[in-house]
């Protein structure tokens, strides 16, 4: 199995063997984080541009650390205080950056499909770091890596994704990745936040939290965006939290080895009770640590080979 892609735009386009290849490479990258000298010369002389049109701390930092540990030069470009504010189009900005010969452009954008547009126009590798409500493939990969580490395998596991599935690019990447790896996925949330046709992705739908998590090996809690309430999709934060928030009491009847995951940033007291976020079930910080390893693997796979 050899990596052939120029870009990483979604998990929908990857097959199980490709996902496994990224996870295996990530596993090797984790060792570097344990070293005293956290640097290998692999991407020396390569340039990675972080092109972030949306606020992000975790993902941008994670890509930056990943690039630096591999010895790449990492340049951060954020839309605020830049030419984007002066009205330059996405493509014009990207073409200008390309003129400076980067090897990888990591892009986050509020518009679904923006990374795919760039990938078509740029000769360098493009990594989707989250586009609108479409996908966030490296998050999906780090979730799979975390589950595989904790459970030893992926196939046959039951995963329940709880919350605002409709607006979540994380959920979409997770669902595609998990289905390809042979996992059973249930989505649960108020009907206003569950996309109407999501059964077509091969997932089960539940509108009762207790029922949805009863047999889960993994519970993935999604962040509730406060804007959803203003949009009238949920009555109030308090009611959402009471019905869909995860508390220790609701976890009681669940499997004793259940994993609680969250893509961050956590709304403590809304979707996750603080005592759950800090409990032994929670692998939220493992997810963050694995994020660096996954992004190292992705940068490595996209920059190394000449294949085109």
């Amino acid at each position, binding site marked *: 199995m*050899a*990596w052939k892609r120029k870009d990483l735009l979604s998990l929908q386009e990857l097959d199980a063997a490709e996902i496994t*290849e990224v996870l*295996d*490479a990530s*596993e*090797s*990258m984790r*060792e*570097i984080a344990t*070293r*005293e*000298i956290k*640097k*290998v*010369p*692999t991407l020396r002389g390569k340039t990675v541009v972080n092109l972030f049109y949306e606020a992000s701390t975790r993902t941008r930092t994670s890509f930056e650390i990943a690039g630096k540990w*591999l010895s790449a030069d990492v340049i951060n470009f954020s839309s605020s205080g830049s030419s984007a504010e002066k009205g330059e189009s996405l493509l014009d900005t990207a073409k200008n950056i390309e003129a400076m010969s980067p090897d990888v452009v990591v892009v986050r954008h509020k518009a679904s499909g923006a990374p795919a547009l760039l990938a078509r126009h740029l000769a360098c590798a493009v990594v989707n770091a989250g586009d609108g409500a479409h996908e966030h493939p490296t998050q999906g990969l780090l979730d799979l890596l975390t589950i595989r580490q904790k459970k030893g395998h992926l196939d046959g596991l039951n995963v329940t994704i709880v919350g605002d599935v409709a607006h979540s690019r994380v959920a979409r990447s997770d669902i595609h990745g998990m289905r390809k790896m042979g996992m059973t996925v249930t989505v649960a949330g108020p009907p206003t936040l569950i996309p109407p046709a999501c059964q077509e992705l091969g997932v089960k739908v539940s509108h009762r939290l207790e029922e949805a998590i009863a047999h889960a090996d993994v519970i993935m809690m999604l962040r509730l965006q406060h804007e959803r309430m203003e949009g009238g999709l949920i009555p109030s934060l308090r009611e959402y939290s009471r019905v869909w928030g995860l508390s220790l009491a609701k976890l009681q009847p669940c499997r004793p080895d259940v994993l609680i995951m969250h893509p961050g940033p956590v709304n403590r007291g809304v979707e996750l009770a603080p005592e759950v976020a800090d409990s032994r079930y929670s692998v939220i910080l493992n997810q963050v640590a694995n994020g660096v390893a996954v992004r190292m*693997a992705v940068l*490595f*796979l996209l920059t*190394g*080979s*000449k*294949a085109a």
Partner: protein
Amino acid sequence: MTYREKAQVLDEAALDRALTRIAHEIVEQAGGVEHLALVGIKTRGVTLAHRIAEKIAAIEGAKPVVGALDITLYRDDLALKAEQPIVRGTEIGFPLKGRTVVLVDDVLFTGRTIRAAMDALMDLGRPLAIRLAVLVDRGHRELPIRPDYIGKNLPTSRREAVAVMLKEHDGIDRVVIQEPTEA
């Protein structure tokens, strides 16, 4: 490119004798196993390192520590490869400081792998000394690197390939020279 076998260089018994001799030479020079470490270069170098460690244990009554080094992230030819090589991970569960590290690999050719392995080791610590043991030295060095312990010196042409087969991976112990099938 496909290859066909040209000649067998080592059979099972000869391969075993070569490793036994290397084990004796390592012990003789190191004067004991206490500050000795064998580090195999993945994949077959690791297997050879374990075999040599067993032989040293039989001679000395104590086994040196063994580690595994993956040099993929240190290669200088990543951009030249048509396919991205697989990263297999480094496993060295002991401090290198103050130890004599014997790098173990199956075939020594251009020396670039060993250059990468030395860089990788240096990132993990500061060994007292690094030495090199190879089962086959086939010549054609491109860097000023020379092995300390050699199983077999094997003059080859550049277009030939040397295949080391080990029971753990290939079900049989033997070393063969291969030549390209097309002229």
